[in-house]
């Protein structure tokens, strides 16, 4: 808290690693809210970004608790408005639209009911359908601000039902004057969405990225484009639709096209006005200088622009017809497109904006058909805007199936700092936090920013409630490792199996195992089956396996939880980087032990990864191996952290690979795990490991009451104010 206060005072960015389950969210919320109350001028807004909808709900729950506490203590209504925002899919209350299950379809349907020209048409002709909730909001909702309080998604929906206002647009409208906004990363990082949603957030805000351990991947994803053959075919179709619509419109209503044309001659002035006074978030897809210039003459009229798009699409098609992998820089691509189809850089830059304008003019209400074309136009704009930090990779087939032709063009962002730069530049304080950020110095490097505070916190615990161990060999002294050379070795696989069987016999309730990849999981399970290990395992516990199918996995999870709840005990075999490893908690009896079989390195042969590594090496002097280890260890730590969700919880963490005990891997684990990882537990065999487990479990099984914690990890008010404690806290704060 002290660190956070310092960062807020300094108006700088900070990077905090806090173990999961120690009240990270509450700490952040309570301090920032208090700061907001104390310095209302310096700090006006808190933007809290989380990853998934359940996580957003959890934050809202914490916030509600905090507000209730404030009310109880201060005895009056708090004038603070907090709300959550999610996509239309989660917020729509229109009975016909909300039935749709896919997010994109809901967006398209919503647009077709609420776009301004549809409503204009409705005014003329009652038969045209519109959304009554949006009408209600538009008529009344804009004048009346939301009363102060805390609104999660369901509250917003309820409020919308009551007033018959559209909750989605209500929430978006309210963002401008709410004190606390909670939403997903993408609303801030993805430039296409940030432009629409987040542009009116003032500079004096605090932005918190929670669970931010893979924030660099989110940044990269938001700026990368993937173009397949099928996408291009769809593009061709939508271009024909555009052509016919234009010719139709020319016959019936040529005035509108003329109007658009005139506006384009004048330049994209309207957009410039919005961006004046530095109010809006700068969009990296569309650099500011473009807005000040007029659209180049080559794509000014609608027909010319459609012909232009056609050429671009056809050109990319020819590029996809390659027989071998091609990798080139944006500059090379631009030169090639110039010589092959005579397209200059400038019109390419404008293509995204021009397409949006054209679709608006043509009054096309169903946007879902055009998403491929929009993707291509974004690609065109990006490729012509950025010459550094990006690469183009064309693969004629996948590595796993070299005979099936499936050409894909990857336009891959290599520099995660491009997408996040506007966020750092714009807001006075950005807090990046997660349970697993180690090693801390990597993040400022790859995100290219200068934090004022960068710390890793440990837990104050009344008992040693985590037991990390590194098991490096089996009972037969054969080294255990998922190294490429030994991963097919039956001795290694058998040793892994024996380890699991013995741990399953010793540990009660749930055990979660993580493998390095789906492929590895499958080969191991099949050879365990041959060796009879599966039978032995099933004598102790039920067995569940994660697969690539999301529905299957969630079914397995439900049954796993059932098996743990009724005391039968279960083993879940899952994959690091999979769905289970991110965001699903195995607290208390659901995860008494976590086993990590091997080090979860990424698939290093991927060309995109190679390109990124090369870029990191050249630009930031990060060695390839360092980055790979960093990435592998943060995923390993993420998996291990699944079993610890609070101070009363306890769990065993077994790292089953010889390589974990090396200094470069061990030092990259978070501090709160390292603290408990003793040197004596670093090179164990299966037998020793099981012995330690048994002893530790007996110790943990003793009743653990509130009194035991008091004075160590839990403080009463008197204790907190006592002089001795104050001294201790002071010492700690200085020591960090």
């Amino acid at each position: 808290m002290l660190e956070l206060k310092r960062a807020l005072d300094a108006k700088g960015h900070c990077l905090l690693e806090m173990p999961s389950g120690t009240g990270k969210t509450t700490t952040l919320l309570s301090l920032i809210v208090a700061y907001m109350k104390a310095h209302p001028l310096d700090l006006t807004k808190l933007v809290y970004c989380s990853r998934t909808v359940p996580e957003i709900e959890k934050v809202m729950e914490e916030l509600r608790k905090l507000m209730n506490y404030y009310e109880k203590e201060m005895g009056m209504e708090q004038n603070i408005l907090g709300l959550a925002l999610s996509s239309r899919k989660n917020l729509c209350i229109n009975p016909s639209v909300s039935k749709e299950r896919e997010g994109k379809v809901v967006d398209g349907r919503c647009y077709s009911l609420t776009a301004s020209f549809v409503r204009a048409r409705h005014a003329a002709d009652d038969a045209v359908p519109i959304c009554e909730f949006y009408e209600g909001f538009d008529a009344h909702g804009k004048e009346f601000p939301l009363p102060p309080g805390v609104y999660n998604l369901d509250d917003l929906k309820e409020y919308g039902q009551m007033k018959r206002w559209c909750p989605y647009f209500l929430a978006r409208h309210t963002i401008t004057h709410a004190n606390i906004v909670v939403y997903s990363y993408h609303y801030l990082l993805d430039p296409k969405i940030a432009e629409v949603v987040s542009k009116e957030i003032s500079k004096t805000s605090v932005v918190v990225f929670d669970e931010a351990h893979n924030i660099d991947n989110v940044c990269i994803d938001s700026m990368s484009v993937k173009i397949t053959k099928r996408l291009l075919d769809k593009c061709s179709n939508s271009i024909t639709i555009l052509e016919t619509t234009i010719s139709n419109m020319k016959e019936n209503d040529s005035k509108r096209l003329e109007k658009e044309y005139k506006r384009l001659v004048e330049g994209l002035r309207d957009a410039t006005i919005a961006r004046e006074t530095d109010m809006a978030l700068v969009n990296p897809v569309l650099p500011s200088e473009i807005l000040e210039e007029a659209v180049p003459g080559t794509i000014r009229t609608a027909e010319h622009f459609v012909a232009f798009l056609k050429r671009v699409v056809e050109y990319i098609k020819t590029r996809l017809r390659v027989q071998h992998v091609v990798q080139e820089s944006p500059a090379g691509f631009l030169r090639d497109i110039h010589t092959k189809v005579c397209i200059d850089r400038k019109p390419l830059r404008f293509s995204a904006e021009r397409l949006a304008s054209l679709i608006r003019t043509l009054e096309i209400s169903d946007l879902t058909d055009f998403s491929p074309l929009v993707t291509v136009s974004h690609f065109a704009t990006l490729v012509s805007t950025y010459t550094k930090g990006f690469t183009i990779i064309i693969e004629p087939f996948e590595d796993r199936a070299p005979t099936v032709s499936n050409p894909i063009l990857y336009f891959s962002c290599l520099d995660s700092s491009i997408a996040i730069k506007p966020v750092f530049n714009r807001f006075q304080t950005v807090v990046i936090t997660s349970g697993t950020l180690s090693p801390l110095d990597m993040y400022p490097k790859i995100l290219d920013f200068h934090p004022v505070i960068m710390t890793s916190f440990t837990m104050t615990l009344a008992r040693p409630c985590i037991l990390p161990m590194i098991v490096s060999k089996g009972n037969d002294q054969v080294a255990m490792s998922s190294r490429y050379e030994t991963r097919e070795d039956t001795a290694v696989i058998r040793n892994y199996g024996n380890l699991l069987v013995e741990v399953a016999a010793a540990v009660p309730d749930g055990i979660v195992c993580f493998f390095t990849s789906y492929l590895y999981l499958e080969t191991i399970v099949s050879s365990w089956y041959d060796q009879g290990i599966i039978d032995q395992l099933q004598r102790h516990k039920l067995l569940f396996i994660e697969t690539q199918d999301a529905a299957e996995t969630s079914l397995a999870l439900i049954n796993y939880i059932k098996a743990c709840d009724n005391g039968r005990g279960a083993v879940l075999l899952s994959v690091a980087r999979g769905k289970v490893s991110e965001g699903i908690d195995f607290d208390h009896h659901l995860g008494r032990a976590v086993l990590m079989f091997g080090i979860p390195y990424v698939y290093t042969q991927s060309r995109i990864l190679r390109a990124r590594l090369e870029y990191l090496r050249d630009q930031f002097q990060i060695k390839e191996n360092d980055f790979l280890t960093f990435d592998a260890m943060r995923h390993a730590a993420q998996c291990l952290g699944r079993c610890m969700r609070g101070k009363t919880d306890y769990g065993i963490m077994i790292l089953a690979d010889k390589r974990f005990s090396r200094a470069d891997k061990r030092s990259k684990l978070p501090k709160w795990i390292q603290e408990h990882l003793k040197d004596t537990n670093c090179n164990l065999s299966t037998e020793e490991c099981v012995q330690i487990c048994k002893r530790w479990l007996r110790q943990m099984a003793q009743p653990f009451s509130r009194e035991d914690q008091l004075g160590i990890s839990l403080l009463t008010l008197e204790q907190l104010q006592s002089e001795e404690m104050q001294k201790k806290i002071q010492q700690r704060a200085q020591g960090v």
Partner: protein
Amino acid sequence: MDDYQTCPKCKTTKYRNPAMVLMVNACGHALCESCVELLFAKGSGACPECKCPLRRNNFRVQLFEDPAVDKEVDIRKRILKEFNKRQEDFPTLREYNDYLEEVETIIFNLVFDIDPTNTNKMIDNYKKENKDITQKNRNRQSQEEMELEELLEAEKAQQSEKANLYVNAELEEKKQKHKAREKLIDELMFSDADAKSIVASHVQATAALAKEQPKAAAQPSSGVVKSSKFSSGIQIGLRGQHTNSFLPIPKQEDLPLYRYTAPVFDYDGPPPPPIEKLGKLNYFANIRAANIAERAGGYTEAMSCCRALQEALGGLFYSPQLTHKTAVLATNSSTQDTDDMETT
């Protein structure tokens, strides 16, 4: 993927004959290679679809899936050879954009055969009017192209250099590791010292090496970027692009020459001992001697000692009565023997 491509004349498909190649001529209708040979055996003939008179020499391999695009690109290339004005040729951006649109319209008309007589007239007019500009522009690259070329060039240079550098660095590292290990083994074999202490010192040495490594790695980045500019800001290798670079270098105004005057210090205590005498006065007895590596960089223990002494005695500099007096004195006597302050 291209299996459904068919020759409109003989109906061969790519699927049945993988060697089939489609060709396009000025009219934008495709024909397979064998049909072209058959129909245009004489060297010229009519397009089987639109009856356009065509020459065999003008047949090109179809690049794009849609032959219409091939045709358009063909026309575009031809037109752009004539219409090659640059933005620099126009006074305002607006006029340039108007010009671009005009070009686009001409191409569009030619592709879709709209109003051919008028369009051709327009082209002819333009050709006559702008003969010299066209000629001139043909010989020079546009600003943008140049920029791209430069980028590519820089990329290439950087890539090769970096690759070399890192390969070398890695090799070096491996060698060093190998050496260190051999040295350790040798020592363990031949020396009489305690094995534990040898191993400990070895670990220390490797740790120290590892610390130095990142510094070494950070260095090359600054040195690698090859400059494409002279220090004066003129670009290397681009002759005649920036005509104004041949202007005479503007003459700088003459100022009176700078003359050094030693600053005057006055203080109220004993003067700090001069740097040369520190050794004689036995000041070095109390400080750590500089090691060889430090000395190599030009550092001597006298420097830090002298600085520390000066700092210690610095507090005596201030004396309010004296400053006034000596200010008057200073005008008379220009230098004092406090110059040794400046030597550091």
